[in-house]
């Protein structure tokens, strides 16, 4: 498990237990349970409409769950108004107050807490320096670039030292380069202040980059929770493996299962042996899932004994700079894509149309029962 951020002494956890939310006939959130540890940065990841924003808004108190419990720092907050929850939130559109200057925006939360003028000025100056906005204090939000607005929103949300920081796709409006820069900044800032943070995104790369743990959601449910490497390396379903990163999926049928190892026949008639979970039974239709970077092309003889080997024909190779993708026809109408790095010492790809052998460590080949 990846190292968690250093929690500050007053960081609190957030717990959701069997939380549900309906919008009329639409069930936006179904039985979501989450335990977010103090100081942790967790992202809610999933496709559009899966209930990420709704879940975040329930933590903020802007929506009320129809069932279940929400606790912040152990205290039940279901009936607590948002302004009493001591949270900070960054909205997707930033929601900076247009009639206030940057400094007034950042000062707003402190003013609502009735802090003194001097304390407010000092804290605002510190927060603005933290997000490198000090020279822009007197500007209006309308006079800022997208990245600067994002920083103001962040400064405004953290200056009150909230127990929980909530961010709803705060980087979606930024271009790729700025987004990557802000990801690093948010992560650094979050570590510095040690606030428990919940981050909504539908960008899997962003989730992998930023999170201590990722909560993958689908249709209002949590389908997997784990560290970035856990959800990437050990997805628990086809949905998760497809949603996070690029993946190969090959159809197969289970011929036998013994001692946690399944023998699976692929379309071409080749059989391979893979570790299998308990829900895999003989005669079952399955998907074999493997990441392209876990597939070796023509592994050296010495490395082959421990590998699952699949024979195929190289159809074409796509060079993308750092890596090359090899599309290999493995028979039965199925293609496996292997990714090889283009570092020094790598032989050029085999000639197109030549037979190749693909090698995969058995533990890197995942088997999922196929529905229907």
């Amino acid at each position, binding site marked *: 498990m990846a190292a968690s951020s250093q929690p500050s002494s007053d960081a609190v956890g957030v717990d959701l237990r069997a939380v549900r939310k309906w919008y009329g006939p639409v069930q936006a959130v179904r039985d979501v349970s989450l335990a977010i540890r103090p100081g942790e940065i967790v992202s809610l990841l999933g496709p559009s409409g899966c209930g990420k924003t709704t879940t975040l808004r329930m933590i903020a108190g802007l929506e009320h769950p129809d069932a279940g419990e929400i606790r912040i720092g152990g205290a039940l907050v279901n009936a607590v108004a948002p302004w009493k929850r001591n949270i900070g939130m960054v909205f997707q559109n930033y929601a900076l107050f247009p*009639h206030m200057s940057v400094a007034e925006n950042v000062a707003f939360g402190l003013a609502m807490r009735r802090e003194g003028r001097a304390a407010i000025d000092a804290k605002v100056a510190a927060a603005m320096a933290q997000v490198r906005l000090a020279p822009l204090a007197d500007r209006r939000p309308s006079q800022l670039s997208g990245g600067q607005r994002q920083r103001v929103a962040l400064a405004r949300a953290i200056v009150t030292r909230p127990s929980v920081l909530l961010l709803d796709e705060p980087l979606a409006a930024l271009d790729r380069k700025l987004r990557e820069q802000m990801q690093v900044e948010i992560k650094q800032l979050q570590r510095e202040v040690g606030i428990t943070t919940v981050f909504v995104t539908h960008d899997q790369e962003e989730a992998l980059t930023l999170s201590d743990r990722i909560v993958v959601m689908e249709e209002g449910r949590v389908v997997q929770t784990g560290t970035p490497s856990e959800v990437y390396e050990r997805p628990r379903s086809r949905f998760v493996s497809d949603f996070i990163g690029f993946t190969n999926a090959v159809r197969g049928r289970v011929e036998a299962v013994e001692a946690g190892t399944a023998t699976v026949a692929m379309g071409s008639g080749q059989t391979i042996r893979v570790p299998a979970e308990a829900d895999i039974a003989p005669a079952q239709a399955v998907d074999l899932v493997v990441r392209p970077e876990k597939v070796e092309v023509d592994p050296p003889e010495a490395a082959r004994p421990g590998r699952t080997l699949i024979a195929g024909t190289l159809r074409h190779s796509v060079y993308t700079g750092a890596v090359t993708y090899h599309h290999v026809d493995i028979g039965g109408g199925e293609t496996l894509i292997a990714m090889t790095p283009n570092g020094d010492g790598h032989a050029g790809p085999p000639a197109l149309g030549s037979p190749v052998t693909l090698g995969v460590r058995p533990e890197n080949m995942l088997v999922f029962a196929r529905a229907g």
Partner: protein
Amino acid sequence: MADLAPPVRPVPASERWLAAYVGLIVLFLALPVLIVVPLAFSSDVSLTFPPRGVSLRWFSNIWARPEFLSAFGLSAAVAVVATAISMVAGVLAAIAFVRHAFPGRDALLMLFMTPLVFPAIVLAAALALVMTPLGLLRSFWGLALAHVVLTLPYILRTAVATLTEIDRSYAEAAHTLGADRWQAFRHVTLPMLRPGLLAGATFALIISFDEFTVSMFLVGPGVMTLPLEMYNYSEFTLDPTLAAISTVLLVLTSIAILVIEKLVGLGKQFGG
């Protein structure tokens, strides 16, 4: 600086025709209003144009007649009270209409707007009938409440339009920063509503001050609005006194509009 001057471009004939056309329309709209100004300074006893001499006697005639001053005072008081009540009611109603869904919302909003399209005379008769048993006929408060009915739609309409434009995430952001409902309204929503509300309030003040039909049914001795006082005066005397009053109103209205424009303009720059 010469380099900042816009490039000189020959004006095409079609644009000159357009300018002349627009100028004519402006003249047509403004002429009847502007003609009262020279008349007000006329030395003639009758309303002849162009005036044969210049005098301020009609302005002093206004001062000489206390009924005009008290009517002005009453009209101004009614306009301010009616607008103030409409503002509070209109903003609260707009929040309900825009931010909350409830059964019959659209029908109710339409009902609030009906005074805009209803024949004023129907409203006048109805209000007179309602106010008689309530003892509000020929009273300041009867008049002020009747004017609330007339001015509310203007405030409500601008408030609903402005509030619809204000994303609800602003108030929500205020809530997450520790502002309760009142603080979020007071410090975030209201300042963002201000330009729209000022426009609505200006409209409401003018509508009320100018109102004739409904007021006619509700005024009486001692409770007389300026338009009705002017009408009464004209029944007996047609001299430039009315032009003088109109000129004063014209100047006051222009000042009010300039001040509001300045306030709203400044508000945009400094958030005031």
